[in-house]
């Protein structure tokens, strides 16, 4: 028999430890991503000191289409990191809840989608409507 060749994303994630690993990875990736934006954001606010003209002229950076797309990523990152972090805090404060991690993750995912999807939709629609 030949070796299995179907070594896709699913089996790679499964090999690394399943949904727990995926959540851990997403928590780290969104954390580092939000930190990168925070650094950029502090720099742009610092530029307030250079006066109204300089600051307002630089705002085109945040109004460009690619920046508006990044804004949806920022919304995703902050919302996911907040909800997953809240679950971690709850599980640390009440250790018995570790027995119900799968159920808590299911609640987390539903809550995340319930908040993220409508807000992202309105953000995108607002941009597309505003640009059109």
């Amino acid at each position, binding site marked *: 028999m030949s070796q299995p060749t179907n070594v896709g994303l699913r089996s790679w994630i499964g090999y690394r430890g*399943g949904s727990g690993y995926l*959540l851990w990875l997403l928590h780290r990736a969104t954390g580092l991503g939000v930190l990168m934006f925070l650094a950029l954001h502090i720099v742009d606010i610092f530029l307030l000191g250079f006066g109204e003209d300089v600051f307002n002229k630089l705002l085109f950076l945040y109004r460009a289409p690619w920046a508006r797309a990044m804004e949806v990523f920022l919304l995703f990152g902050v919302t996911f990191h907040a909800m997953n972090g809240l679950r971690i805090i709850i599980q640390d404060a009440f250790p018995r809840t570790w027995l119900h991690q799968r159920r808590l993750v299911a609640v987390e995912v539903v809550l995340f989608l319930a908040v993220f999807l409508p807000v992202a939709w309105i953000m995108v629609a607002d941009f597309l409507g505003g640009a059109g």
Partner: protein
Amino acid sequence: MSERREGGGHNRPAGTGFESKAWFFMRLSGVVLLGLAVFHLYWMHFAIGVDNIDFQTVVGRWSNPLWRLYDFALLVFALSHGFNGLRYAIEDYVRRPGRRLVVKSIAYVAGFLLISAGAYIIFTFDVGAA
């Protein structure tokens, strides 16, 4: 570094040393940021919207010292939470001691510059002159 846990986070490091306090601080600042950062993002990007923000928006907000205090608290908690998280990532991925020292030093200098720049503009910005 304590043991990495499935689903995110780490088990609390043993004892009462720095790592144990850092672990607790991540939970504490996490709760604070659930209020400060999440409200800030949803208010500025969703309720107001990027298209409606310019220099005068900030002048309006910073005319009230309480908003400066809010933004300073957000700056301090977000940076300390974020840079401690970055420290965890560096310790996970940069294994060689010499290289780790270099990467950590760069990160700490960047963190110091960012908190200085942020605090400077929050407390020196003159809304009267603007």
